[in-house]
């Protein structure tokens, strides 16, 4: 089975790194992965999108996804093209309170306040990893330890000091994620 993820946000949120981390984690588990990136020239604030496809056999998915099973919506800006590709019923993680869960198509929507959670574990720069930890807790696409190992592997030598904080962010996201809306209905609490 192939599972597609679209990640959408703005430059500076760690969109590309979280997508690459998931794709590498799946690859290290011996599975097939594809990663497509799409971002503007701006360092921060411009559109940043990525898609990841994971499967147990050679992938059929196209590098421009015809549709996607799941989403991480880190920011509402520039998110419309990605949201338009989502198949109903799949899981989505939204970054609260920046993203309104009701802005998504009829999916099973989960929320996490990524900035607050990242700050609470003294990893304020790692909101992308909070979102990824939350996403993987919901979808269980890869083992949590695969994510942490891939995160460490992707850090360049001059960023290794962030490995522990990033790992805390991944774990905290997995704990903090909550249902925000069922497909077609609001969820109380």
């Amino acid at each position, binding site marked *: 089975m192939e599972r597609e993820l679209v990640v959408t946000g703005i430059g500076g949120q760690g969109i590309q790194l979280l997508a*690459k981390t998931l*794709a*590498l984690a*799946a*690859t290290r588990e*011996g*599975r*097939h*992965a*594809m*990663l*497509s*990136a799409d971002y503007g020239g701006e360092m921060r604030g411009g559109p940043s999108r990525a898609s990841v496809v994971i499967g147990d056999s*050679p*992938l*059929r998915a*196209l*590098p*421009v996804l*015809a549709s996607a099973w799941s989403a991480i919506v880190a920011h509402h800006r520039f998110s419309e093209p990605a949201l338009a590709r989502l198949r109903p019923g799949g899981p989505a993680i939204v970054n609260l309170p920046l993203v309104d869960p009701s802005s998504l198509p009829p999916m099973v929507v989960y929320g996490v306040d990524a900035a607050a959670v990242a700050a609470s574990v003294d990893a304020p720069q790692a909101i992308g990893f909070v979102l990824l930890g939350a996403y993987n807790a919901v979808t269980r696409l890869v083992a949590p330890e695969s994510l942490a190992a891939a995160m460490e592997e992707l850090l360049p030598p001059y960023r290794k000091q962030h490995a522990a904080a990033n790992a805390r962010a991944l774990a905290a996201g997995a704990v903090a994620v909550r249902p925000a809306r069922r497909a077609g209905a609001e969820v109380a609490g």
Partner: protein
Amino acid sequence: MTLELLEGSEAIAASAIAAGCRFFAGYPMSPFTGLLESMSRLLPAVGGVCLNAESEIEGVNMALGAAAAGARAATGSCGQGIALMQEAIAEAALNETPFVVFNMARNQQDYFQSTRGGGWGDYRTITLAPKDIPEAVEHAQLAFHLADKHRAPVIFYGDPLIAQTRVGVSIRPLDFGPLPPKDWALDGTRSGTGKSRQIWTWAMGKATDPGPGPDRHWRAIAAKFDAIAKVEARHEQAHVEDAETLVVAFGSAAKFVEYVVAELRAEGHRIGWFRPVTLWPFPGEALAKATAGARRVLVFELNAGQMLDDVLIHAADRSAVRFIGGVSIAESGLAYGELMDAPVIRDRILAAVGEGTRS
């Protein structure tokens, strides 16, 4: 088989090196730059050389020089830079110097450039057009094999999706069979005075050892390309037996078409696809057979209609051919526009199917 998550450019570079490429020269231009960067990172570790040339013209001529000395050599750019390389590519075709030109193109507008060429003389360039990164990894090695087999430059026609997407790939040397010895190479083994070899487009030879001259030489070159055309055309196809509608596409566009055709068949449409794997030689005989029973032959490419010419030449019935592609470029100018998208392609195919058929 262990998979590594590599960007297409990196995978192509690693595959070319696995095939024995030891010299690379080029000038940065998006989306080719990733291949140049990968080569510059990977080649020194295997004793190879990668040079950032002063321009594309220097890059291609450096590759020509290294190839003349017997190395597996390559250059690359995107179509805009390869436009500058046309003289050297034509010379290499005519003086039989084998190297590979990686066109990490921005779009599909270089079909004529690849298959017709912009240099002078009676020459052709074998052109491989992979549909995705796994095939690009294979073609990166096949290109060197075909170049050495036929002593001719070979073009690898990639694109931004192949250059910049990351996928899990496994890279190992591929065996395409034996090759003739490079007994023509200017490798210094003839020990000099009076015995030196010569590579010369006009083949006039030396005063003491005249060559065949341009007339005989260029007839032989033309005959060689005729022979290549008969044996090296490659294609893939599916569902041609019962297809009322056959969609012809190349490169990444063909992968998208394959995806859409699979959807449409699942919905009951009698539709198939045909993909030239080599753009030159164009698999004309195969296309003629594949289109013999089709009521519609749809050509999808992201340009104003270039491969369309070859389809019109070879289709069983020209009147069945319809063009459903078009120019489609991203705002940046560096990548495909909105037409490289499965839902859009699906709409165009369905619109053409709904337009009626030849009687």
